[in-house]
């Protein structure tokens, strides 16, 4: 049996750790709520812009002139992988990175470029010997519109300069507060069937006038649509990370409680044993004097 001071020391250590996990749990839950709000506010925008996209695609010939809809031979792919900046969140990072690996392998493109958000994603690919071409700093911790905008416009610019053929975003989608699912979404090129399940904008097809032109309208619409998608993916990934961290920290806190209970019992037993032994010694000593 370990000595009393040793047990006391362990109890203190577990208590301190519990304090940390408990605090992290509270922080994660606050951050998750913030991220969920971001996502909810983005939903009307995404829905509307998809409807507009579908309308323009179906009712004009602008699509034929837009490079975003062109079908190039798919040889060079870009994967934008979103993971967290740190661990302590259960299997969140591992799951999304495993999906990323599987997707890249399954697609088997001639040239693969990886863009990463989040340090865990960066170090994962660096370890695999495929160092990310672009790493976006500070986005995983602070998803915002400005950075989504920069990322998207950079992607569009590279796409238009014919540096890659298709782009995917790999992130964790939060289906319900406790169900996280890593997902792959194609950003570019845009296909008609992406909008198949979008409800049409207007009941009847109105004759629309375009200012300045159909092509310009579509050219403006596509980046905005993509910005909306990237922003939503960042917000979702952030919410998922916080939710995963919440669950992990909740479990650790509960484990700490359990451990404390056990250690306390052990401590009491050790204390009682020591007292009993002392008493025995005193009684034995007194007996020998008499």
């Amino acid at each position: 049996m370990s000595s009393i001071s040793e047990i006391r020391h362990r109890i203190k250590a577990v208590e301190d750790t519990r304090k940390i996990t408990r605090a992290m749990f509270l922080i994660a839950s606050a951050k998750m709520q913030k991220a969920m709000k971001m996502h909810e506010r983005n939903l009307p925008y995404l829905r509307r812009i998809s409807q507009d996209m579908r309308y323009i695609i179906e009712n004009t010939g602008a699509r034929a002139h837009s490079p975003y809809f062109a079908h190039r031979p798919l040889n060079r792919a870009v994967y934008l992988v979103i993971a967290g900046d740190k661990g302590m969140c259960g299997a969140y990072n591992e799951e999304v990175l495993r999906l990323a690996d599987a997707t890249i392998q399954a697609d088997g493109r001639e040239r693969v470029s990886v863009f990463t958000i989040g340090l865990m994603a960066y170090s994962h690919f660096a370890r695999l010997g495929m160092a990310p071409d672009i790493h976006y700093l500070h986005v995983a911790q602070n998803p915002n519109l400005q950075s989504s905008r920069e990322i998207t416009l950079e992607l569009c610019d590279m796409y238009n300069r014919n540096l890659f053929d298709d782009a995917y975003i790999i992130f964790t989608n939060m289906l319900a507060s406790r169900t996280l699912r890593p997902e792959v979404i194609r950003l570019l090129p845009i296909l008609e069937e992406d909008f198949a399940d979008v409800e049409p904008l207007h009941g009847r097809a109105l004759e629309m006038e375009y200012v300045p032109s159909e092509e310009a309208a579509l050219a403006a619409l596509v980046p905005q649509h993509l910005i909306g998608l990237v922003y939503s993916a960042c917000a979702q990934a952030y919410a998922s990370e916080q939710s995963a961290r919440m669950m992990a920290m909740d479990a650790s806190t509960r484990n700490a409680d359990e451990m404390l209970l056990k250690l306390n019992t052990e401590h009491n037993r050790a204390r009682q044993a020591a007292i009993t032994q002392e008493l025995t010694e005193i009684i034995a000593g007194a007996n020998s004097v008499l």
Partner: protein
Amino acid sequence: MANTFRLQIITPERVFLEADAEMLVVKAPDGEIGIAAGHTPMIISTQEGEVRIKLGGQWREAAAADGFVTVTPDHALFLVQTCEWPEEIDENRARRDEERALEALRQQGSMHEYIMAKSMLSRAMVRLRVLRHSPGND
């Protein structure tokens, strides 16, 4: 009562405005376009600029980034990257953005950087202009 139409202004971050408006003026590449009830169906891509909205006989002005408007006779949907009322604009931030953009333009980077800096500059300038126009801010 004046003729109104349903106006929705939506950004990725929030629903900026949902109201019955009498008129909406946005900035298209070739000049400003005013939209009132019964307007011919139209899709307009807009640039960074002031947006003027007539609500209940009163004109209000907001600073918008690039976006586009879908107009039907009784409805206008304005999807835009950012849109802010004058009281929401952070003047210091707008000034800082303006300086950063000017600095980036001086650096003469790639075409991409040039475009980003240009749009950042025009957004900052619109914000500052809207602030100047708003009452109590001369």
